[in-house]
């Protein structure tokens, strides 16, 4: 178990700055997700932490020990790769045993460790098979077993589920959460998939263009985004952004209500719109509505009745996110909403 601390970590390839001065703490025993769009530097960051790539400057600590210049094998970590990276010429058993052999662990002990891990990932019957005889999910479990058997201080995972089909991915997500709960070890998990991040992480770090945009619990990230990038990156469909002069205001699709008969409750804001499309997702429905502020998404629990084209959207001011010119979150500026405010008397007139 280990806490990992990054201090002023920088990385550039030639003139491109891939990581710009990153300082972070990855808490001991946390399931931390490095989330960001492709090319944001998240995989590079993970590889630097693993020692597979060299940083341009900065320091890395594991607990209090500096590991910046340590070889990968001396960092007390194990890594699971996107393509599993199993040795094709070795059996499942040999794949898991390989690292232990190099560490010169005695044979009897090795056998005990490998058998134990095989049981844990339910692959005992497949021990003598080659990776190409296994399904994607089984390969993934071998890759996990190979990491687990090393009993590392931290697990690094680089998009480990992206090669699996949707159903298996959901299943493996559950398994990883349970595994982490069982091992109580630090997990550092790289993904571009916000669903994975939100569902698995106890802690999320959002990267964009080599900079940390925000870090926090999934709830903090979702309900309290610090800037436009985070607000737009997290949430499906993404947050609705309306331009009001230099400012942007954002409302999440599920915080907008779609009405056809107006309810003059206090502090309600209203936008007129025209229904463009309806997307039934089963449990919920997404409506796309054209308004004078652009096309807005509305997400509601499913209602199966058909809706007339002219619709009205209402929302509460507490759910509105305000962003300044630079895209950073600012304190609520309710006067920006004045245009949208419903004057009840006017309505009833």
């Amino acid at each position, binding site marked *: 178990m280990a806490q990992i601390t990054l201090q002023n970590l920088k990385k550039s390839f030639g003139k491109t700055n891939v990581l710009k001065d990153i300082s972070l703490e990855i808490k001991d025993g946390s399931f931390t997700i490095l989330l960001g769009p492709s090319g944001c530097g998240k995989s590079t960051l993970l*590889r630097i932490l*693993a*020692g*597979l790539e060299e940083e341009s400057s900065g320091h890395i600590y594991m607990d209090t020990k500096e590991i910046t210049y340590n*070889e*990968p*094998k001396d960092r007390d*970590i*194990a*890594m699971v*790769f*996107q*393509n599993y*990276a199993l*040795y*094709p*010429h070795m059996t499942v058993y040999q794949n898991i045993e*390989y*690292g232990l052999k*190099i*560490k010169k662990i005695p044979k009897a002990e090795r056998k005990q460790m490998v058998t134990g891990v095989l049981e844990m990932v339910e692959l005992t019957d497949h021990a003598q098979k080659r990776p190409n005889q296994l399904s994607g999910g089984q390969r993934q479990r071998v890759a996990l077993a190979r990491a687990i058997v090393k009993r590392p201080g931290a697990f690094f995972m680089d998009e480990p589920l992206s090669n699996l089909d949707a159903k298996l991915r959901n299943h493996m997500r559950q398994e990883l959460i349970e595994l982490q709960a069982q091992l109580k070890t630090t997990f550092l998990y790289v993904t571009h998939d916000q669903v994975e991040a939100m569902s698995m992480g106890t802690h999320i770090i959002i990267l964009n263009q080599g900079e940390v945009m925000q870090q926090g619990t999934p709830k903090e990230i979702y309900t309290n985004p610090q800037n436009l990038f985070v607000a737009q990156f997290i949430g499906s469909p993404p947050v609705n952004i309306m331009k009001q002069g230099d400012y942007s205001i954002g409302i999440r699709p599920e915080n907008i209500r779609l009405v056809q008969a107006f309810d003059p409750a206090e502090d309600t804001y209203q936008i007129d719109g025209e229904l463009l499309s309806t997307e039934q997702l089963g449990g919920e429905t997404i409506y796309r509505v054209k308004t004078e502020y652009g096309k807005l998404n509305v997400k509601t629990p499913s209602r199966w009745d058909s809706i007339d084209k002219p619709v009205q959207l209402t929302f509460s001011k507490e759910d509105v996110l305000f962003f300044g010119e630079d895209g950073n979150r600012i304190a609520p500026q309710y006067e920006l909403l004045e245009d949208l405010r419903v004057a009840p008397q006017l309505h009833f007139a």
Partner: protein
Amino acid sequence: MRQRKLSISTILQHTLLILLSLIAIFPLYWMIISSLKNEADIFNSSIIPWNATFSNYVYAFQEMPILRMMLNSFVMATLLTAFQLITSILTSYALVRWQVKGSTFIYLLISLSWLIPMQVIMIPNYVLVNQMGLNETLLGIVIPLSVSTFAILSLYQSFRSFPKALIDSARLDGEKDFFILVKVILPNLKSTIASLGILLFINGWNEYLWPMLITTEMENAPIQIGLRSFVNSDVNMWGSLMAATTISCLPILVIYFILRKHIIESFVRYGIK
């Protein structure tokens, strides 16, 4: 069962292919039947050797230490293959594994060296081998040819396409750099290296000009040099030449029958040289 229809284009294609195969095989066939003809029939254009005789073979064996020279050829080709494989594996691994400054430049230099013809460096090499006292030895033949640019360039491509994650994984497992090559990379490139090895062996077996410079005694020379001795300014002993050539082809033929699949694969992979 549905009957397969032969379309005209299939027939044309196959006729063409059969024709081309015959053209390719005919010289070999001619070589074999000529080796069985006696002196009088040698310029006879009959394609069947009516009065087959083994006298040419007997004569060839009397004239030349054929077995000894074939052994020379075999040792030479094996050593060349081994050296060229080792040097090209190490070079490719170094170039791919460590992206140091200037590695592209080194690769460029190696590529360019392929453009320098053997004939240009033959004389300096000869002088050097002479000074080292390696004349008349197989080592003298092998050492200057122990690095093959062709082999390096071919393997470099395979090494480059080798999944990097496997190497990373081995590094995380704590494997040493040399053993990453031996235990992780090479076992997975077995067929590539086997194909390349076969090509290098055939090239080595056919080496002619350079061994001719280094050796003067028949006992020290590979078989290809020996063949030449049947053709000289006074008499051309075609019958014996064909007999000896047929014998010299046998080992390659045997290897071909054993490794047929690999050889075809290696020709497909590296193109016919």
